[in-house]
């Protein structure tokens, strides 16, 4: 979490906490004050009631000599006068003021002696029986001989009944009852309660606010941590990428060097293979002249031993041997020229290439009874690496030858067909060897891929041929299966 944000949350939390604590403190103070107000108000009210009931007591005591009940029963005017006096104290707050005494027969039944009420429907008659709900409180006054009060709530307001005993000769002769309303007290109390509720609401809201802020702070902290983690991970990844970039160039160089080395090795292997081929072909080419030289030499030797070797015969034999030796030498030249790598391009035709090839493969193909079919219709001249092209053609013919021998094909043939197609010169080398398995046809140009026996094939011939045609000569070398066998197509421009 950043510093300013943390500071903000800290301030918010502190503020909410302060509000909550202050509200709590104010609430406690308020409770105390409320108690004081209600207590003082209530006491003041009761004190006032006590004072005026004392006054009424004095008024009644002044008018009565010994027995309240008897004297009131006997003197109607006195009753009227005292009731008038009681009515003077009646107001909306001091609703009922009346004097009761308890019947001697039943301590539950009381009777009215005086009633200050002026409402006729509620005005009691003299000696009218009365059974208060709070009988026990009334009897308590008789027993304790002192004033008491009790609260009774009704739905409209709080009411209090004040009971004042009228004592004559230390005996309770009657009880002065004052029912008074505490409505104003209730109003104050209600207002204070409202205030109290508001306090509670503020406290609850503050707590809720604190919890909300804490929750948000917590969530924000978690989010910030996750963000920091992600940022750290990103930093690490960036570092890795940077390191990778730093080493990438070196690695590319390394890989390039490796590839070059690999190519070099491949080329070397390919050359070795070609050399093997060349030696094999030279050996094949040399077999006949060598045999002829051997035969001539043996004939001369035989005639010399018998003494029949004449001068002219010697000349004839040596001429023959010279001719055979020259043939051998020409063969070496042909092979040397064929396999000599040339970096420069030269203008050449497909027919020249094929003719050159025939010099070195004719005897090998004839030996294996393979018919070589030629359809040389291409007339376009090619500006290309002729020797490399010859090597590719040799490779294709030798592969065909190997397949025909390996599969022991009846009436084997290899067909070399050339033709022009627009600006392109096309050469097709096909045979009747049965074609290439479709499963592997796509892989035959891959390096080290060979269908020959391990000792015969390196798996590099077709790979190198493809590279020579596609990359060195700028042409295209493809393969497909024909009706009788594989057809290799070489397109050059």
């Amino acid at each position, binding site marked *: 979490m950043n510093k300013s944000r943390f500071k903000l949350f800290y301030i918010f939390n502190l503020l909410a906490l302060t509000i909550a604590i202050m509200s709590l403190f104010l609430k406690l103070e308020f409770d105390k004050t409320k108690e004081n107000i209600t207590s003082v108000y209530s006491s003041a009210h009761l004190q006032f009631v006590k004072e005026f009931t004392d006054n009424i007591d004095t008024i009644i005591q002044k008018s009565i000599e010994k027995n309240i009940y008897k004297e009131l029963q006997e003197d109607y005017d006195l009753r009227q006068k005292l009731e008038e006096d009681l009515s003077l104290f009646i107001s909306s707050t001091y609703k009922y003021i009346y004097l009761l005494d308890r019947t001697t027969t039943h301590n*539950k039944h009381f009777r009215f002696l005086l009633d200050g009420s002026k409402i006729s429907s509620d005005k009691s008659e003299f000696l009218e029986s009365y059974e208060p709900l709070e009988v026990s409180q009334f009897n308590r006054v008789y027993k304790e001989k002192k004033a008491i009060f009790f609260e009774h709530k009704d739905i409209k307001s709080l009411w209090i009944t004040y009971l004042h005993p009228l004592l004559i000769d230390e005996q309770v002769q009657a009880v002065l009852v004052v029912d008074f309303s505490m409505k104003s007290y209730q109003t104050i109390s209600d207002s204070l309660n409202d205030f109290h509720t508001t306090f509670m609401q503020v406290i609850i809201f503050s707590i809720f606010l604190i919890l909300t802020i804490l929750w948000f702070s917590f969530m924000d902290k978690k989010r910030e941590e996750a963000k920091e983690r992600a940022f750290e991970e990103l930093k690490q990844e960036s570092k890795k990428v940077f390191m990778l970039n730093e080493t990438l160039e070196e690695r590319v160089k390394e890989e390039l060097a490796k590839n070059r080395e690999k190519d070099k090795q491949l080329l070397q292997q390919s050359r070795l293979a070609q050399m093997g081929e060349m030696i094999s072909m030279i050996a094949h080419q040399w077999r006949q002249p060598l045999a002829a030289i051997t035969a001539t030499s043996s004939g001369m030797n035989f005639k010399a031993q018998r003494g029949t070797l004449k001068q002219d015969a010697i000349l004839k034999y040596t001429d023959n041997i010279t001719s055979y030796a020259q043939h051998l030498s020409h063969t070496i030249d042909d092979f040397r020229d064929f396999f000599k790598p040339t970096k420069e391009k030269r203008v050449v035709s497909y027919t020249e290439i094929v003719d050159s090839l025939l010099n070195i493969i004719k005897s090998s193909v004839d030996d294996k009874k393979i018919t070589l079919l030629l359809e040389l219709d291409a007339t376009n001249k090619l500006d290309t690496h002729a020797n490399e092209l010859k090597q590719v053609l040799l490779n294709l013919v030798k592969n065909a030858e190997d397949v025909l021998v390996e599969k022991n094909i009846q009436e084997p043939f290899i067909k070399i067909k050339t033709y022009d197609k627009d600006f392109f010169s096309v050469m097709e080398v096909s045979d009747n060897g049965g074609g290439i398995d479709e499963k592997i046809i796509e892989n035959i140009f891959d390096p080290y891929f060979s269908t020959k026996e391990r000792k015969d094939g390196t798996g590099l011939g077709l790979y190198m041929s493809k590279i020579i045609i596609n990359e060195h000569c700028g042409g295209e070398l493809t393969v497909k299966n024909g009706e009788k066998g594989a057809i290799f197509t070489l397109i050059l421009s």
Partner: protein
Amino acid sequence: MLRFFLILSILGYALSAEDNYEQKLYESILPKIFHKSNVQIFINNSEAKKVLKMSTILTIVQKCTDADILIGNSFTKEESSCQKKPSFALDYRAYKRSKNAIGAFYWRKGRPQITFNKDAFEHHKLTIPKSLQKYVQ
């Protein structure tokens, strides 16, 4: 506004409870006095009629002659034919005034008062149930 509705509903509940209290009082007293599960009553007081109209034990009748007891303070000339029937007063003065009033129920100084007249009971050859004897003056 909420406070107003709250007070109004409490007040309504309290008033209905008071009505209910009076109804229950009559329902507990009258069947015991007349030894009947359903007592026919004639009422000429609108407030009392309102209180007792929902009762299932007490049946309000239209003619006083059909009633077991009359409830009210004063009765008309037509109802004077029923003057021999027992009555139940709703005011202390009416109770005192009427010889036929076997009892009374009224409010005095905000407190409910119930009282029974032994002589009236005897006059109408009725007996005061034991549970109500404490209210006899």
